[in-house]
């Protein structure tokens, strides 16, 4: 049977240099529960190293956690990758790490904390996660799809690091599954302003627990999986976006 799911598909953890330790597995899940969010997407910059911790921490809760990543392309466009399987997120991570130059400077950008589901610090990632990969956007989307994931262009209404800001308009050869907007505009406005050809998703891009669920997308699905969301974005088998 199909039922509505509230999804916030773009949440950062304490691994992203621009967040604090309060974006830990417990911090994130508690906030998601409070806002009655059914599905969360874990999208740290260019890394998926905290995805498994959140998935494990959510096991006894009624929240579906998608392992994922917010990848920065060569053009400095941010794109979300979301998967059902942690293995596929980690395969994408291998591609990304291979083409991500630089080392993090904690003083300048912040700490990149790797944690486990018990909130224990396992270590610090020393890659320059805030930087850009040298992979072209088109190729990143191809890799995501080859790993059964979905690719969503991040916060397209923002000037910085968005496909519209960096590339001026959406190139017609891209196979994006959806366009994400920030809480600043509505899906109707986004369709009018940017493109009628793609489904629009709304997410919080949360960097603080209080941000989680501030913006979300409602889907009509059978289960809380990426495979189901893929169907909903294509309006297949009764699955759909209900905003």
């Amino acid at each position, binding site marked *: 049977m199909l039922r509505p799911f509230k999804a916030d598909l773009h949440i950062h953890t304490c691994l992203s240099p621009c967040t604090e330790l309060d974006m830990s597995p417990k911090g994130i899940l508690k906030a998601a529960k409070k806002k009655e969010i059914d599905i969360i997407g874990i999208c740290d910059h260019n890394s998926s190293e905290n995805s498994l911790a959140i998935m494990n921490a959510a096991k006894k809760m009624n929240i579906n956690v998608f392992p994922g990543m917010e990848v920065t392309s*060569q*053009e*400095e466009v941010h794109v979300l990758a979301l998967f059902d399987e942690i293995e596929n997120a980690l395969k994408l991570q291998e591609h990304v790490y291979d083409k991500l130059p630089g080392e993090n400077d904690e003083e300048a950008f912040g700490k990149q904390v790797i944690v486990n589901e018990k909130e224990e610090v396992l270590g610090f990632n020393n890659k320059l996660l805030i930087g850009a990969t040298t992979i*072209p*956007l088109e190729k990143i989307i191809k890799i995501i799809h080859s790993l059964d994931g979905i690719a969503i262009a991040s916060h397209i209404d923002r*000037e910085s690091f968005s496909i*519209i*800001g*960096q*590339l*001026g*308009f959406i*190139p017609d*050869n891209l196979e994006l599954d959806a366009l994400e907007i920030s809480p600043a505009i509505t899906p109707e406005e986004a369709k009018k302003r940017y493109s009628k050809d793609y489904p629009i998703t709304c997410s919080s891009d949360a960097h603080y627990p209080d941000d989680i669920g501030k913006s979300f997308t409602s889907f009509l699905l059978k289960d809380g999986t990426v495979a189901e969301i893929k169907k909903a974005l294509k309006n297949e088998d009764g699955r759909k976006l209900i905003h």
Partner: protein
Amino acid sequence: MKLKEIIEKLQLKVLTGQDKLDVEVTSGYTSDLLSDVIANSKESNLWITLQTHQNIIAVAKLKDLSGIIIVNNREPDEDTLKKAKEENLPLLGSEEMAFEVSGKLYELISLKD
């Protein structure tokens, strides 16, 4: 100043648009945000950027720019070269960075005035 004079003085590599080098360049515009180029560049500007995505060709056509200089020895994507050929737009390459190319172009154009 004619584009071909600039190419000679700045020692630029001509990647496409060989027969469009007689155009007059009024000024330059340096930016890597294509949305900004759409909003603020002017007709006949020579655009200096490190972006190599094929959208740069569409933006240059849209704004009637005289050409694009890709800096830092970056290689344009294959689609970009193809589009530039189709549109017959001068796509130029420089080994120098945007600061140097912009500085030299500014000097050339302002000296001429």
